[in-house]
């Protein structure tokens, strides 16, 4: 058995075709996760125990349970909720089996990102000096405005590197979606392996694509972050 470089390049092509979909899924999951996570972080910083305790339990569950188990739980429950809802909305009967697996994927990965981003943003909010808030309020700015205009932007800048690393993490965790019939970069390699009967080339090609993409994204992110820091630094000076 020999290693065919030509076949590996074919596999790289097949995997590249799945890259846009993977990046799209990761971007939407991360963006929604940041928005929902920010909401949870703000609530958890407050002292309302009726809200903070259930949220802490939910976040702990989402962080403590393997993503594949969560994916299977959503896959075996969400369509049964959505099917009656869709039937009522469209007027024609919809079976749970007809529900697109994208609903399952987005639900799972948005929840995944919400849990992790809420912790990131909570840490970032706590890292901003309290004196800033007090100074703003003493200048006559309303507490809400002080929070939204002064504390939040600074916290986002602190959390930025963590968002980037979670983007890469989400891309990696998306490799599990083949279990619910969605094609991402890993599933594309798996399909190529099954069709060509050559697993070695397919998985080696997948490793190369993941590695290359991770390096490219890391460089792009660090450039963008440098740019943002320079711009906000110039504004505040």
């Amino acid at each position, binding site marked *: *058995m020999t290693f065919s470089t030509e076949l590996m390049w074919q596999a790289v092509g097949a995997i590249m075709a799945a890259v846009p979909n993977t990046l799209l899924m990761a971007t939407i999951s991360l963006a929604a996760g940041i928005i929902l996570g920010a909401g949870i972080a703000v609530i958890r910083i407050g002292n309302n125990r009726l809200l903070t305790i259930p949220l802490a339990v939910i976040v*702990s*569950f989402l*962080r*403590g*349970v*393997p*993503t*594949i*188990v*969560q994916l*299977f*739980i959503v896959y*075996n*429950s969400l369509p*049964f*909720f959505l*099917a*009656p*809802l869709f*039937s*009522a909305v469209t007027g024609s009967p919809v079976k*749970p089996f007809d529900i697109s697996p994208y609903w399952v994927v987005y639900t799972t990965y948005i929840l995944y990102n919400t849990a992790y981003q809420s912790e990131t943003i909570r840490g970032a909010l706590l890292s901003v000096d309290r004196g800033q808030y007090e100074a703003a309020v003493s200048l006559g700015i309303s507490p809400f405005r002080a929070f939204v205009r002064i504390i939040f932007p600074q916290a986002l800048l602190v959390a930025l590197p963590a968002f980037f690393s979670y983007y*890469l993490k989400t891309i*990696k*965790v*998306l*490799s*599990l979606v083949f279990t619910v019939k969605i094609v991402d970069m*890993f599933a594309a*390699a798996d399909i190529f*392996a099954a069709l060509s009967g050559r*697993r*070695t080339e397919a*998985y*080696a090609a*997948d*490793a190369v694509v*993941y*590695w290359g*993409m*991770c*390096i490219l994204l890391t460089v792009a992110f660090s450039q963008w972050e440098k740019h943002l820091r320079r711009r906000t630094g110039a504004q505040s000076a």
Partner: protein
Amino acid sequence: MVSLLTFNMAYFLAQFPKLMAVIPYTLYIICVSALICLSLGTLIAAVRIARVPVLAHFCEVWLSFIRSMPFILELYLTYFCLPVVLRLAGVNTTGWPLTVYVFVSIAFHYSPMISEVIRPAYYAVDRGQHEAAMVFGLSAYKRIRRIIAPQALPIALPGLVNQLIDMIKDTSLMFLIGVIDLMGKAGLIINSNYGRGKLEVYVAVAVLYWAFVIVLEFLMHYLERRNLRSLSREG
């Protein structure tokens, strides 16, 4: 509008005794993997701290490689591609137990990750401590064992526990190559019930993994608090 979802509480509770049967095996996999990764990770950290010429660069490339890759791909590379490579080298892998691939893939992924926790912890110990130990004429082994490690370990602890939690969560993928751990057993239970009651079984599995992680987090907080107390006693 009626939800089509059913959740049978009795069936859910009945899963726990069945799943408990594979917990010793799951814990065995986790403990052995953790020990392998900890020793290999320490070795890699030592290689990188000592800047061993070619090896240190190799470890850095290795780290960048595994960091960019999902664990499942490494599992498949180990399970499907390693035997091909070994056969070229003249090693016959027929009849090797599945656990070998489990340990190799986990060690391949998590050893460099753990070195990334240990290395900063080593550097976090004040330089003066190294120099003072040297002045007292302690051997290199004693310097590390008696002076550096006791101070670096508490710093490394949260990072190590986080890696351990990630590792436990990744062992849930082993069922894909046919290992009968918690997820593997869940699949067997579902198959023996003709595919019914999936939700109950997976929720039971989730509860067990959650319990693992919560116990570990409690343990970490306990150790951290004890460590803080002992530091304040000394200081």
